[in-house]
């Protein structure tokens, strides 16, 4: 048998719990409203009004070991780094299409492109291309497919950004010895002296 005082205390605690729960629910709602009112923190998708520009893709072909140029019209951002990244991502995405002559899994992509002045030569740029972590496992392993991937990227970039003279590659922000076991990623590629297009 509980005393009247204990009954009173129990009822008081119960009322307190209900009141506290109501206050917490209200505070949570207010916090959500405040967050919703903030500007969107994630990058926006490419704006619909991005101007369409004509670009050149150097498309690789594993069967012939050659690159062929294709003219494309793409909507690309005006910021040079974003434009280079989107250009390469659209090129790489085309390699995963059915019937591709240079099949690379759709997970491969470029996270970012950094454009830096070449030391001692302000008129030319060094492009640092940061592949996503999924790129190496998505890239077929072999001298020919890896070489064609690098040549295609270097030459496509140079065709649309003539000021780019040097290219370096990172994977997920880190230097790697090779792309997928073969093509060397430790060097800085000189665009003008890059290996000539393979011929069949």
């Amino acid at each position, binding site marked *: 048998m509980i005393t009247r005082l204990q009954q009173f205390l129990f009822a008081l605690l119960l009322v307190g719990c209900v009141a506290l729960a109501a206050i917490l629910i209200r505070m949570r709602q207010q916090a959500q409203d405040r967050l919703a009112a903030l500007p969107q923190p994630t990058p926006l998708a490419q704006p619909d009004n991005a101007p369409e520009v004509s670009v050149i893709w150097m498309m690789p072909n*594993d069967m012939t070991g050659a690159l062929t140029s294709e003219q494309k019209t793409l909507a690309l951002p005006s910021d040079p780094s974003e434009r280079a990244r989107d250009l390469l991502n659209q090129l790489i995405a085309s390699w995963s299409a059915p019937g591709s002559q240079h099949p690379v899994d759709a997970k491969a992509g470029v996270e970012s492109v950094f454009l830096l002045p070449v030391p001692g030569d302000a008129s030319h740029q060094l492009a640092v291309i940061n592949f996503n972590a999924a790129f190496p496992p998505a890239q077929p392993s*072999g*001298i020919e497919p890896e070489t064609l991937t690098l040549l295609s990227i270097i030459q496509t970039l140079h065709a649309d950004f003539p000021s780019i003279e040097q290219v370096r590659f990172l994977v997920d922000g880190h230097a790697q010895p090779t792309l997928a*076991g073969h093509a060397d990623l430790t*060097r800085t590629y000189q665009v003008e002296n890059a290996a000539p297009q393979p011929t069949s």
Partner: protein
Amino acid sequence: MRGIAQQPPAQPAHQFVIVLDPAHGGSDSGAKISPALEEKSITLEMATHLRTLLQARGFSVIMTRTGDTDPDLTTRAGLANHAQAAACLILHATASGAGVHLFTSSLAPAPRTAVPAWATAQAGYVNASIRLSSDLDAALTPTGIPVVVGRTFLQPLDNLTCPAVAVELAPMQSGSITRGETLDDPHYQTQVLTAITAALMQWRQDWSSQP
């Protein structure tokens, strides 16, 4: 060192030595050709078979590995350079493309120096490497096997002080279809290796006529 088949003997400069480098090995399996087939096994199989063919024709052959080991790239290049080889073949395999891919260094040709820089040691041999690649191409073409010739960015190719070509075996082509499993086909491999042997015999003949 484990994985080195033979220590390079002191070779007179005029002796005709071939260095075969079966790429990958040990924990580095290279390309996964099929669920049951790894690049490191194919390259070792090709090198062993090619060594037999070459030795039967009087060549002196050094292999950078004879088992499932992975000498590092510096060791492989050092072995070839100490042997003063007349030709160095780096053997690879891939499931992409078709036929045989012949790659030489992308370094710009430069005059040979007594003490070349390690990173660009191949520069003095690039022209000879391209000639060797051309001989290999000429020997393979009559077989009907597709050949792709190009320049690449591959280690330890740039560190070699010998005429050097990376030979990459790709699947057989039937129309527009290739299958990785065909890399293991003994008939296909024999066809390719016999052509490579013929090219090296031609290379030896050209070599002896050089000053």
